[in-house]
């Protein structure tokens, strides 16, 4: 909960991994992705490694990591437990789907159904991660309607970016993914801005007056905290530096998470679309010439070979 590195890494890596798995499980059975086993292996391995690394990392913020398995027990009431159960359950259909695709080159039929199932489980896992935060009533910045959608849009952004990257090793000119990746970045940017606007313009239902049941005489304010030194709550929940530099930190997040990826996506989109189309047109014009050149070159090589053998 405290933004330790293990939790930041977990949220980012697992979000990207499960979103990539969601896209693969959805698109491969529909025949929208390269059918090569090699592509299936690299793409699915990326998704599995990211999701697993994130989950393993999340264990390190626990006070008693060796008891982490106990977190699978309370799925009936706890979103944290539900997330744990769903993240592990996702690997079952995903593993069957991966075996079918990588070892047998099959992505449709029954294997395709396991792909869809893996996609559904991955999406539910992401929703559970969001709900851990969205279900906490005391924290206004989390307990609102923007939190779960943001987990989806940010996850999908990472998933589409990864998919577009991997697909380029198998397809020279990928159709759809460059544009979808750009749209996913823009959607994530919009939802993050909407979230920021929401938390800036609204406030928690509770305040110091309702927390103390005072206020009938006027304004309530703290005179003395319970102690002169630190305590657990301040260590866990008091973030003065982050609050102080809110505007700049948001600017950094905006540039590195949205503006740069969007620009790079745009360049990739132009590179794989417009520029390639231009090059294709030039190639058509030059085809006759290049064909003749190639023939000439082959003849030269052949004659050189013959000359060498003769010597």
């Amino acid at each position, binding site marked *: 909960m405290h933004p330790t590195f293990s939790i930041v890494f977990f949220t980012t890596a697992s979000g990207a991994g499960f979103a990539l798995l969601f896209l693969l499980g959805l698109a491969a059975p529909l025949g929208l992705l390269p059918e090569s086993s090699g592509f299936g292996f690299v793409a699915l391995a990326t998704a599995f490694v990211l999701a697993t690394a994130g989950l393993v990392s999340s264990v390190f913020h626990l006070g008693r990591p060796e008891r982490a398995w106990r977190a699978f027990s309370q799925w009936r009431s706890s979103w944290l437990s539900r997330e744990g159960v769903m993240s592990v359950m996702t690997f079952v259909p995903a593993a069957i789907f991966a075996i079918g695709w990588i070892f047998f080159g099959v992505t449709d039929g029954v294997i395709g159904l396991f792909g869809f199932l893996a996609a559904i489980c991955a999406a539910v896992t992401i929703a559970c991660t969001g709900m851990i935060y969205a279900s906490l*009533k005391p924290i206004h910045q989390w307990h609102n309607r923007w939190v779960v959608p943001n987990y989806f849009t940010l996850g999908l952004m990472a998933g589409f970016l990864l998919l577009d990257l991997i697909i380029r090793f198998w397809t020279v000119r990928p159709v759809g993914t460059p544009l979808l990746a750009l749209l996913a970045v823009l959607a994530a940017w919009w939802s993050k801005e909407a979230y920021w606007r929401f938390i800036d313009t609204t406030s928690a239902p509770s305040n110091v007056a*309702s927390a103390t049941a005072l206020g009938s005489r006027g304004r*309530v304010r703290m005179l003395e905290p319970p102690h002169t030194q*630190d305590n657990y709550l301040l260590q866990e929940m008091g973030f003065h530096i982050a609050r102080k530099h809110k505007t700049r930190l948001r600017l950094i997040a905006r540039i590195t998470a949205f503006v740069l990826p969007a620009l790079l996506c745009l360049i990739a989109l132009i590179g794989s679309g417009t520029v390639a189309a231009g090059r294709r047109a030039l190639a058509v014009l030059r085809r006759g010439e290049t064909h003749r050149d190639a023939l000439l070159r082959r003849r030269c090589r052949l004659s050189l070979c013959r000359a060498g053998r003769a010597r």
Partner: protein
Amino acid sequence: MTDLPPTYPGQKKLGLVIDLDLCVGCHACATACKEWNTGGHMAPLPDFNAYGDGAWGVWFNRIHSFEDGEGERACTVHFPKSCLHCEDAACVTVCPTGASYKRVEDGIVLVNESLCIGCKLCSWACPYGAREFDADEGVMKKCTLCIDRIYNDNLAPQERQPACVMVCPTKARFFGDLGDPNSAVSELVAARAGTDLMPELGYRPVNKYLPPRRGRPHGEDREAAPLSAVIAEAQNEADAANPLLRWVDRLLSR
């Protein structure tokens, strides 16, 4: 199980009633709590850098001080705060392991330390800041309502109360069954308009707080009489001591 226990009419709800009018902020309840509980059910309550700068540690009860109002009307309110043993305790339902639970028989919220994984989610679910993390053992701890005192046959019956209630020098703390409308604590809450903290969150805390009494108005509230009238009244009183002047006064007042 971290589901909340089933509820039924007349269910026992043990809790505290804290009189903000009487509390003088002496921190005796916090000290007594620490002293008892560091050897009690949730023991130990560790301290870190206890004798140096940056000392901190586990305390189940902490006393805040607030100012209510402005200027002469302002009132300093000392505000002891510990676990409120909520009826709708989110700290229990968010727990992924079943370590956090609410007892069906008396409503006390406890932590089973041998199940706790130290994920700290319960501390984020608690709006009252009642959860305390033991960084030595890596588990969450909290107020037990001195469960090892209130049911302790080895203590004299009058001592079977939470340590904070026993020690309070101004008798600002009361312990009892808030589920029974006829109990002494329930009657006190009804008589003094005791309230919930943050009722808008819907946690339905069992512990209740009695607001400070309004007290005598002072400062600009009192109708200050002009000085001349005060002097005139004093002279009247002096004159009234003289029987002749009293007779003249009575005669002329007709």
